[in-house]
C-alpha cells in the first residue's frame, strides 16, 4: 500500500459503541495511538457468495500494515546500515531562547525527547509526509514565525478573546508549518496546549457520533476520548498542579470540587460515552484557571464552518456547530467563551475542496471572495456570529531567498535529492515556484527530473 494512499484514507478505528450509553463491560479499542493493531474478527454468516472462497483465503497475502512508520535509527542493526554514507540531520534545536529575529531563515529541529506533542497530537498529512522523507522533524524559522511568537508572548497575559488569529494565505505558503511552530513554542513555554492538526476529521463522519439530549447536540465520544488522552499526555506535568473548581456528578463517578483535574480527565478516558461531556467540562476548567495560559490551535479551521458529513435520523446533514466539539471550538474562536489567559489559533487550508471556507468566514477575515457576490446571497447568521472578531494573519506567499536556501540545504543534507547541490539549480527551482514553499519542495525538488 502506497504511503500517500494510506495517509489519505485516514485509517481510524470505529469503536463498538455508537451511543453515549456504553454497553456494560466493553473495552474500547482505539487504534492508531494506544492499542496495537489486531486482526479483524471474522463473523460467520449464512450467505455464501462465491464458490472459490477457500482458494482466495489461501492466496491472500499478509495483513495490510496500514500507515507506514519508519524504524528508529537504533533498530537498524543490520550491517547494510553501518555505512559512512548514512548521515543523520544535525540541526540546532528549536528552543524559545534561540527564536529571535537572528534565527530567521534557519532550519531548527523540534526536540524529540522533551515533548511528545508531535507523536501525541499527530500532524497534518502534508507535514507528516515530509517528515517521513526527512529523518527528523524540523522546520525553517521565518520572520513570520518570529512575529507569531511575539504575538503569543503578548497573549500570555491576556484573555484569549483578545488574541484570536487565523492564518490565511495562498495555498502552499506555509500556514500549517507556522501553526506547528507556534504549538511547539507554546508547549516549551509551559502553556496548556490543545492542537487539532486535522480539523476535517471532526466533520467528515469518520468517528462515531451520538445525540445528547441534555445539550441537544451531537457528541463524538471516540474522538473526544482520544483527544483527552492526547491532551493529558502532552500536558501531564502542568496538569498535576491544577485542580477542578466545581463539582461534576457523573453517573459512574463523581468529581468533587478541588479534586485534581486529572481525575476529571480520567472519567472521560475510562468511560467513552462520557468523553464529550468531560471535554466540555475540561474546557470550562481551563477557561477559569489563571495559572497557565491555554493555546487552542485548529488546523483546517474552515471545516468547522461547513456542513458536516454526519446525518440526522431524517437524513439531513448536520451542521458543524451542532456537534459538541466543533461547537466548543467555534465558541472559543468567536469569543463567546474565553480562556482567562491564552489564545486561539486557526489555519485555513485549501487542500480539501469538500470543505471550503464559506462566504461568512471569508468576509469576516476580509479575504477576497471566490466568485461574484452581492448582498442578496444568503448568509447564515449563526456562522456570522461564530466568525466575529477573528483576526486575519496573512502569511506571505513568497519565501525569501534565504528561507528557500535553508529549505534546500535541509533536503540536501538529508540526501533526499537526486541532483547535486548548486546555486543555479536552486535559483531555477525558486524561480519556477515563484517563491511558493509547497511548489518549491514538492515539485521543484522532489518531482523534478531536470539535472
Amino acid at each position, binding site marked *: 500500500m502506497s504511503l500517500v494512499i494510506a495517509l489519505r484514507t485516514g485509517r481510524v478505528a470505529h469503536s463498538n459503541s455508537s451511543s453515549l450509553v456504553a454497553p456494560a463491560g466493553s473495552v474500547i479499542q482505539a487504534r492508531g495511538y494506544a492499542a496495537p493493531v489486531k486482526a479483524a474478527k471474522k463473523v460467520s454468516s449464512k450467505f455464501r457468495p462465491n464458490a472459490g472462497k477457500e482458494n482466495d483465503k489461501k492466496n491472500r497475502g499478509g495483513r495490510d500494515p496500514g500507515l507506514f512508520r519508519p524504524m528508529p535509527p537504533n533498530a537498524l542493526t543490520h550491517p547494510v546500515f553501518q555505512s559512512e554514507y548514512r548521515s543523520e540531520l544535525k540541526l540546532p534545536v528549536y528552543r524559545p531562547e534561540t527564536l529571535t*529575529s*537572528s534565527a530567521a531563515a534557519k532550519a531548527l529541529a523540534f526536540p524529540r525527547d522533551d515533548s511528545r506533542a508531535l507523536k501525541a497530537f499527530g500532524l497534518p498529512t502534508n507535514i507528516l509526509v515530509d517528515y517521513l522523507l526527512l529523518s527528523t522533524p524540523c522546520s525553517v524559522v521565518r520572520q513570520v514565525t518570529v512575529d507569531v511568537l511575539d504575538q503569543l508572548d503578548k497573549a500570555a497575559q491576556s484573555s484569549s478573546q483578545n488574541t484570536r488569529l487565523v492564518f490565511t494565505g495562498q495555498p502552499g505558503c506555509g500556514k500549517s508549518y507556522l501553526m506547528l511552530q507556534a504549538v511547539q513554542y507554546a508547549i516549551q513555554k509551559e502553556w496548556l496546549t490543545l492542537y487539532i492538526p486535522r480539523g476535517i476529521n471532526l466533520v467528515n463522519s469518520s468517528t462515531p457520533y451520538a445525540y445528547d439530549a441534555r445539550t441537544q447536540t451531537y457528541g463524538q465520544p471516540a474522538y473526544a476520548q482520544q483527544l483527552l488522552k492526547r491532551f493529558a499526555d502532552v500536558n501531564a506535568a502542568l496538569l498535576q498542579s491544577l485542580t477542578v473548581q466545581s463539582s461534576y456528578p457523573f453517573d459512574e463517578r463523581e468529581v468533587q470540587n478541588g479534586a485534581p483535574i486529572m481525575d476529571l480527565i480520567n472519567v472521560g478516558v475510562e468511560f467513552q460515552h462520557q468523553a464529550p461531556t468531560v471535554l466540555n467540562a475540561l474546557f470550562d476548567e481551563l477557561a477559569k484557571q489563571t495559572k497557565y495560559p491555554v493555546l487552542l490551535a485548529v488546523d483546517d479551521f474552515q471545516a468547522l464552518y461547513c456542513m458536516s458529513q454526519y446525518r440526522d435520523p431524517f437524513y439531513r446533514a448536520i451542521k458543524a456547530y451542532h456537534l459538541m466539539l466543533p461547537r466548543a471550538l467555534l465558541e472559543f474562536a468567536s469569543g463567546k467563551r474565553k480562556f482567562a489567559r491564552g489564545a486561539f489559533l486557526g489555519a485555513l487550508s485549501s487542500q480539501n475542496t469538500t470543505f471550503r471556507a464559506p462566504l461568512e468566514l471569508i468576509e469576516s477575515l476580509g479575504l477576497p471572495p471566490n466568485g461574484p457576490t452581492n448582498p442578496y446571497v444568503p448568509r447564515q447568521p449563526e456562522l456570522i456570529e461564530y466568525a466575529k472578531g477573528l483576526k486575519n494573519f496573512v502569511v506571505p506567499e513568497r519565501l525569501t*531567498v534565504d528561507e528557500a536556501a535553508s529549505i534546500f540545504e535541509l533536503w540536501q543534507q538529508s540526501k533526499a535529492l537526486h541532483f547535486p547541490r548548486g546555486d*543555479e539549480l536552486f*535559483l*531555477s527551482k*525558486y*524561480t*519556477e*515556484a*515563484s*517563491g*511558493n514553499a509547497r*511548489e518549491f519542495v514538492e*515539485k*521543484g525538488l522532489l*518531482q*523534478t527530473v*531536470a539535472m
Partner: protein
Amino acid sequence: MTPSLESGRSFPLATQSRPGRLSARTCALVRQRARSPSSSVSLSRALVSGAVRGTMNIAKQVAGGALRFRAYATAAYVPPASLEGMQRARPPPSKPKPESPSFYTGRANYFDQLLALEKAAKQTRTALQELQILPLPRFAQQNLPPSPGYRRFIGQLNQLNEYRRLAEVAGHMELAGRIQRVLDMFERENKDAILAQGKRKPVKFDEFGRSYTIGRRKESTARVWVIKAKEAASSSTAAAGQGEAQPSQDAPAVGIPGFTRGPLSMAPTPIKVPTTNILVNNIPLVEYFPHLSDRERIVRPFRIAGLLGAYNVFALVRGGGSTGQSGALALGIAKALAAHVPEVEPLLRKAKMLKRDPRMVERKKTGRAKSRKAYTWVKR
C-alpha cells in the same frame, strides 16, 4: 395600353349606348395637341384615338363586372382617380456602376495605370514608326550619344571599397577610416535601413530599458516584455566599514582573525540575491502553469544564458494550450535575453532556443481517420 389607330390594326368596337364622354386625359391631350403647331391630320388622329380610347374606356366601364373576369389577359384595371394618390413600388435600387472597367480585378488602380501605360507605349511606338525612328538602323544605334549613366562612377566606388577592405584587414584603421569618409559622401542617408531590409529587425528598447519580443509555438503567441531586475543596495552600503557590527546577527561580524588587510579582514556582507519574477497574463508563473514541465521549459533560457535573477518578465500569452503557450513564452524570453545581452546569443542559438519550432498540427486527410491513422483494413 390601347394600340393606336396609326398602327393600322382594327379591333371591334363595342356598341355605343350613349355618346361617350371624353375622359380627362383625352381632353388634356387634345388641348396639348391644339396648342402645338401640329398638322390637322395628327390632331384629328389624336382626337379620334382619344375618342376611341375614351369609348374603349366607357365600354369597359359599362361592361363592368363582366370584363373584370379577365376575358383577355391584361393587367387589372384600376380607375385613374385611384392611381393619383398611390405610392408606386419603388424600383429596386440599381447597383452603382463601378468607376472603372477593371474594378473586379481587385486592383483597379494598378490595372488602370498599367493599361494606360501600355496604351501610351503603343501610341508612342506607332508615332515613332510613323516618324521612321523605329526600328533604328544599326549605324544610327551605334552613333547615339551616350546616356548619362553611373557605371564608371560605381566602378570607381567599388574599387575604393575594395581598397578599404584591404586596409581594414591589414590593420591600417586610419587609412581605412579616411577611405570610408570619402565613400560616405556618396552613401544614402537610409543606408542602414536598406542594408537591413531582408534581415531580422533588431529588438527595440523603450525609455525604461524594456525589450519587447514575440514568441510563437503551435497556435500560441506570447508577447514578452523583459526588464533588468533591480540590484539590492545592501552589498554596496555595507562594504564600507571593517568589523562593522551587524545588528541582525548574534555576534558582531568581523573579518577572519589573523588578517589585517585585504578583503578577508573585512566583515562579510550579507548578499541580497536578486530573483527573476515572471508574470504571465498578470498571474504568477506558478499559478498559471501548474505543470512542472511547462515551468522548466520557460526558465530554461535563463539557465542556459546564466542570467537567473538578472531580469524580470511580464508576458501576455494567448491561444493554444499549456505546452504551446509555454513554448511560445520560452522563445520570447530567449529572443529578449539575446537582445539584452548579445554575448549570450551564440549559446542560445546552439541550444536551439532561438528557433521557432515549425511543427504544427497536421491536417486530417480524406480516407484517413486522423492525419496519419488509417481505418481498419478489411480484407473483403
